[in-house]
């Protein structure tokens, strides 16, 4: 075998990310610097990370026009993975902007943070491309391991450690099932390649059990009910930039990987898995929304909301059509902007007191409009978008998802989703009302310092949430062209 005969081109963005990660890591051991310099170095590392992400995004965009390619049959570079890459890279870039100042509040391990973030990005990107079970599993583990550590990165906070422990133990538990499922599929077909699995599956109980267990792993990562229990705790305890990143990146990668598995490896009849996913979707959005109703912490509220959002996105998979996939990808982009934007605003409302569980509580947002009208407006835009109020991105995302569901004959699911949207409007609006209508407390009258990097992140997110809404037609259509090219 000749290394140069391999199709490296199809892995270019991932390689750039890994290389950046190494570069970032190496600086950790070069020279000794004072504390002030450390912060400066942290910023420099953030810049390097951003550059790496940008290059990878650029390469991905260049690949968009190229035909699909594979690497030794292990991964497949196609429109699906390219769009996924863009979502992940976007989420990571926004997270880096958030971490820029936030990180310095509790750690000096900048290079480790950014390099782990990049490794997680690489894991997600590989996950979305995998067409083989071993590759899929290792990619999943890369992203999981990195995120376990990132979740517990704030060592001054018990909540962070607890979140990390819960996420880790449950994640490893779920890994056990996913890998067992993969083993059963291998036993059934004698191969770990999706194409062989689809071709050779016996179609018996073993195949079905294998898929069921595989699905568990994805459902865990997507945070679908009843595999969601870790989500609120991990999201609340993790440093906010990490929460923002994983709430989008992990979900996106797992959804796309699941889609790939369903379309290219599953030999079970459509009705079987579609109904399973439909029920998961129903449970996920309902539980997420109902549980969010009573939250007093904006961060935890957003965690539950992200569970509910995962439920909406599953609708795209249930439909299993071009329209469904297109809608899901569109929603992922919209979700990346609005959800990370919301977490960005929440991170500014947090206090620095790590000793107890003090995150962005609703009380901190009281009367925000009369203190910082722009911040309040931005958060309101994200809330409106998440609630699905026109003309923001979230509205169109839901519109397309529901349309895809109805188109594929899942009218009842679309109706349930609409009812859920109405429920969700209640708690999203609650945040807005608190910011705009309540008078600020004396204690919350202070102006929050907003670092420039956070402003940039929020501005990008606002623009994204607005433009994806205003340009919904063309962007949806362009996703459509790419997705149609994908073999169904």
């Amino acid at each position: 075998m000749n290394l140069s005969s391999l199709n490296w081109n199809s892995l270019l963005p991932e390689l750039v990310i890994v290389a950046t990660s190494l570069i970032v890591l190496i600086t950790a051991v070069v020279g000794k610097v004072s504390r002030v310099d450390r912060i400066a170095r942290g910023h420099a590392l953030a810049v390097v990370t951003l550059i790496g992400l940008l290059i990878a995004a650029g390469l991905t965009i260049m690949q968009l026009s190229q035909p699909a390619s594979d690497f030794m049959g292990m991964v497949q570079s196609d429109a699906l993975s390219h769009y996924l890459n863009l979502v992940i890279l976007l989420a990571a870039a926004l997270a880096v902007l958030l971490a820029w100042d936030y990180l310095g509040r509790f750690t000096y391990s900048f290079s480790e943070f950014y390099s782990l973030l990049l490794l997680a990005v690489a894991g997600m990107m590989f996950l979305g491309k995998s067409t083989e079970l071993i590759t899929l599993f290792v990619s999943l583990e890369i992203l999981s391991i990195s995120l376990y550590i990132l979740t517990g990165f704030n060592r001054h906070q018990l909540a962070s450690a607890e979140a990390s422990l819960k996420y880790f133990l449950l994640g490893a538990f779920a890994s056990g099932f996913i890998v067992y499922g993969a083993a059963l599929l291998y036993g059934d077909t004698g191969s770990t390649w999706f194409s062989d699995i689809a071709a050779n599956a016996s179609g018996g109980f073993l195949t079905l059990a294998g898929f069921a267990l595989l699905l568990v792993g994805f459902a865990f990562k997507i945070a679908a009910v009843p595999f969601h229990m870790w989500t609120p705790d991990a999201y609340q305890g993790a440093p906010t930039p990490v929460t923002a990143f994983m709430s989008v990146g992990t979900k996106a990668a797992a959804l796309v990987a699941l889609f790939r598995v369903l379309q290219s490896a599953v030999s079970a009849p459509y009705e079987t898995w579609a109904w399973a996913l439909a029920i998961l979707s129903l449970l996920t959005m309902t539980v997420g929304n109902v549980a969010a109703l009573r939250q007093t912490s904006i961060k935890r509220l957003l965690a539950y909301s992200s569970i509910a959002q995962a439920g909406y996105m599953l609708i795209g998979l249930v439909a299993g059509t071009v329209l469904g996939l297109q809608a899901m990808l569109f929603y992922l982009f919209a979700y990346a902007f609005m959800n990370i934007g919301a977490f960005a605003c929440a991170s500014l409302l947090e206090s620095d007191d790590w000793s107890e569980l003090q995150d962005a509580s609703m009380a901190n947002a009281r009367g925000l409009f009369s203190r910082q009208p722009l911040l309040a407006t931005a958060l309101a835009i994200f809330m409106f978008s998440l609630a699905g109020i026109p003309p923001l991105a979230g509205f169109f995302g839901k519109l397309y998802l529901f349309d895809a569901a109805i188109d594929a004959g899942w009218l009842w699911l679309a109706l349930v989703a609409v009812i859920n949207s109405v429920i969700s409007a209640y708690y999203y609006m609650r945040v807005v009302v608190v910011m705009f209508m309540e008078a600020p407390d004396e204690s919350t009258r202070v102006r929050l310092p907003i670092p420039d990097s956070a402003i940039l992140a929020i501005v990008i997110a606002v623009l994204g949430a607005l433009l994806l809404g205003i340009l919904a037609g063309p962007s949806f259509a362009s996703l459509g062209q790419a997705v149609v090219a994908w073999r169904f």
Partner: protein
Amino acid sequence: MIFDYAWLILLFPALGLLFNAFFGRRVGHKVAAIVANLAVALSFLMAVALAMGLSALPGDESSVEVLLWPWIHIAGFQVDMALLIDPLSSVMILVVTGIGLLIHIYSATYMKVDDEHQPMDERRYARFFVYMNLFILMMLTLVLANNYVMLYLGWEGVGLASYLLIGFWFYKPSAADAAKKAFLVNRVGDFGMALAIMWMFFLFGKEAGSLSFDAVFAALETASPAVVAALTGVTLLLLLAATGKSAQIPLFVWLPDAMEGPSPVSALIHAATMVTAGVYMLARSHPLLELAPATMTLIAWIGGLTALMAASIAIVQTDLKRILAYSTISQLGYMFLGVGVGAYVASVFHLYTHAFFKALLFLAAGSVMHALHGELNIDLMGGLRKKLPVTYAQFLIGALALAGFPLLSGYWSKDAILLGAFVTSYPLYAIGLFTALLTAFYSLRAVYRAFHGQPRDEHLYDHAHEQPRGMTWPLWALAFGAVFAGLLGLPAIFGKEFGFPVGNLIEGWLKPTFEGLSEPHVAFSTEMALFISSGFVALIGIYLAYARYVKQSGWTLSLQKALSPLQPALENKYWVDEIYFAVIVNPLRALARFFATGAEGVIDGVVNGVGAVTTAAGVGIARLQTGLLSWYALSLFLGVVLLLIYFVFA
């Protein structure tokens, strides 16, 4: 073809706002202002070019749709991002960009100091222009939209810009409250708009496959009687929306408070353009209104009564900008009256002249405010014409135009509306005429109190200084418009009778939009009588003000005494705020409290109403998240086993 580039008109302000949003605070005052002004200037040029392009088209084809991109496209229903360029929208874009440009130029100087008269920092200065450009962008979207959904986008967008600008001095509680009030009151109206659009979607969505004006109006021709009956409901909701945006009864209360925003904002948004969006929207929807005569009547009466009420309140106000705010409400009432009696052209004509003289008045008031370091109470002014001769001249021109002084712009347009009212209903005409008297009185009252007589506050007077040059010439340009803009709308009948070379230009221009509707026409003698009487009424009003405030004649004082029982009602603005507070604000507060703290009793109550099952689920689900890892793992394992059983036995 110029229309292929129509999107440029939106692009320029968008670029301007992006530039200032990202770089504004780094480039300094000058560049920020130049960029913002340039953006609007280019938009204005584009608007002129579009209008010229439109005039080159034959009369019956003078409506162009420019598709930007398909926006929403689901199962047989499509909404596009598309611009509709027709005579009506061309008038609107000319007003928005033209007046907008002059106000931008004025702001470049005016906003160099903040509300405390301290130099403004770059950041806030740039932010101001970001909002202003955002407003222009959104207003253009609103008036250029070819469908109701896009119009609604612009509608909410101008609202957003308006709240942000009202609350521009957000650290002042009064400004923050005013922004909040505007936001809340407008929500009511916007809710009506959203409902109206949804209703139209159900009425026409399937048939027309779109909510574009063309498609909806075309669908009307084949509409069943049931649909026509439903139109009354739709138009009432549209009317509700319009009363919110255009500050009419019952939703006018936010506009006077909106004067907390910087003066250029009051001039641009709360006088010349945004508040006229309601009038524009109703005029645009005239095919719907024509099928709903009840709504038309209601519009006319709302307009007439609002005009009268606001004008009467303006008489006792002492805050210069508030006088102008009530006057704006009153003038918008005239426009509603015009729409209600079917005199759409007259309404749009008044909208256009009003933009000039009201912007002029606000900017002049702004320059008084500048001169007096933020003081706006006319009781503390007096004699300013010696100190501020230029401002005085400008303000006087604006006030006379507003008063309907014969041959100035306001005179022609107000008369056109009164003519329409006269044809339709004598009571409405009487109300309109009486309001004209009040209008003339309060506008000149403001002039005399502020600029004539003796200074009432020596300290203020001594420190007053004339406006800087950067503010002067936009004001003169507006003053020019305030004097001559009316000439575009000389009654056609004059042309016929006096042999003018040109007839009613504006009516001819707007004819294609309001095709098939006949503007009210009466005999020449009647028309002349109406003109003379309204001119006479205006002069009486002006004389009354003169007699009361300059000559201080005894009989005016006794007249005032005779009318004094009315004074508390006027000074308290008919207690509308108080009534709203009791009837709307308090319940709203309760609602807010419910939203904010509803976690405990209230939500349980409400949810109980919906169904005890949900409550149990809500409580249960929250409690399921016990925080205990074993429990989480159990739930996971349960899921695993259920999935397995499902897959194996499915």
